């Protein structure tokens, strides 16, 4: 059988007017589509998944931090800043301090100069920071 031989009868069949479905069929079929509920469900599931991932990530970070904290002191993470070197000091005030039961003490307030940053040591240029500090020492030390 040759395919081309069937063309006339195929064309005749195609030309026949088909019985049509009622216009209400579209409404019936399309009304059965899952609309808002599944969409909400999908969003809910997506939200839950994101929340789950966030919680898991939080827990992981917490576990890592707690393990790290157990092995090393927390301060180890931040290097302790070395105070600038004292390059000069002068006594500002000096007074004797007595307590009820203890020996006499001396309170010395000093003007100290710290070298904050050497700019050029050859030309003796530095940034300095002046401040006061008070220390109390036993009387006989001085």
């Amino acid at each position, binding site marked *: *059988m*040759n395919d081309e*031989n*069937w063309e*006339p*009868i*195929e064309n*005749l*069949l*195609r*030309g*026949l*007017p*088909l*019985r*049509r*479905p*009622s216009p*209400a*069929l*579209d409404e*019936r*079929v*399309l009304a*059965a*589509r*899952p609309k808002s509920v599944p969409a909400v469900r999908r969003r809910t599931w997506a939200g839950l998944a994101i929340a789950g991932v966030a919680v898991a990530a939080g827990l992981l970070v917490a576990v890592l931090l707690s393990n790290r904290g157990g092995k090393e002191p927390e301060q180890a993470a931040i290097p302790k800043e070395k105070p600038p070197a004292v390059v000069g000091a002068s006594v500002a005030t000096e007074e004797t301090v007595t307590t009820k039961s203890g020996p006499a003490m001396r309170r010395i307030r000093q003007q100290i100069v710290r070298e904050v940053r050497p700019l050029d040591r050859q030309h003796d240029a530095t940034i300095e920071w002046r401040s006061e500090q008070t220390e109390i020492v036993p009387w006989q030390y001085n």
Partner: protein
Amino acid sequence: MQRRLEQVYRDHRQGLYTLALAISRSPELAEDAVQEAFTRLWRSSRQPQGDIVAYAFATVRNTALELVRRRRETVQMPASLFDGTRCNPATLASDAEQERLVREAVDALPIRQRQAVVLRLYAGLTFQQIAETLNEALPTVASRYRRALQRIKDVLGAGDSGLGAGD
């Protein structure tokens, strides 16, 4: 998935309905079958493995067969696939009798041949899609389709029809 199915419905609405009608021979049952099939498709979480068009047609077909089995006794007068109130505008008055014979011949086809003709000519499916829809081998489907055309041609009578389909 939902959008694709909706597009399949919009593109193949008439073909899906005609297939359901070819099986059920009842306009009401055919509409029920299409509606129920798409309700199932939309509720199903399964992704179709092959062609989504063939998948939708197969679902409509299976649903129609199921409804027919369930409500067999309710189908009293088998309805025609064709609209008796309308005529093919290309048909001349002298050909009206021939057209009537063709309609009757199609309606009288065995159900499997009728499905093949509907899927090919009125749904516009390829033989591959028809094979997927009917869950049969492609050569089987193609030969069944040709047997259906031969049967219609025989009804018309080769000499008077002018269709010229040589055997």
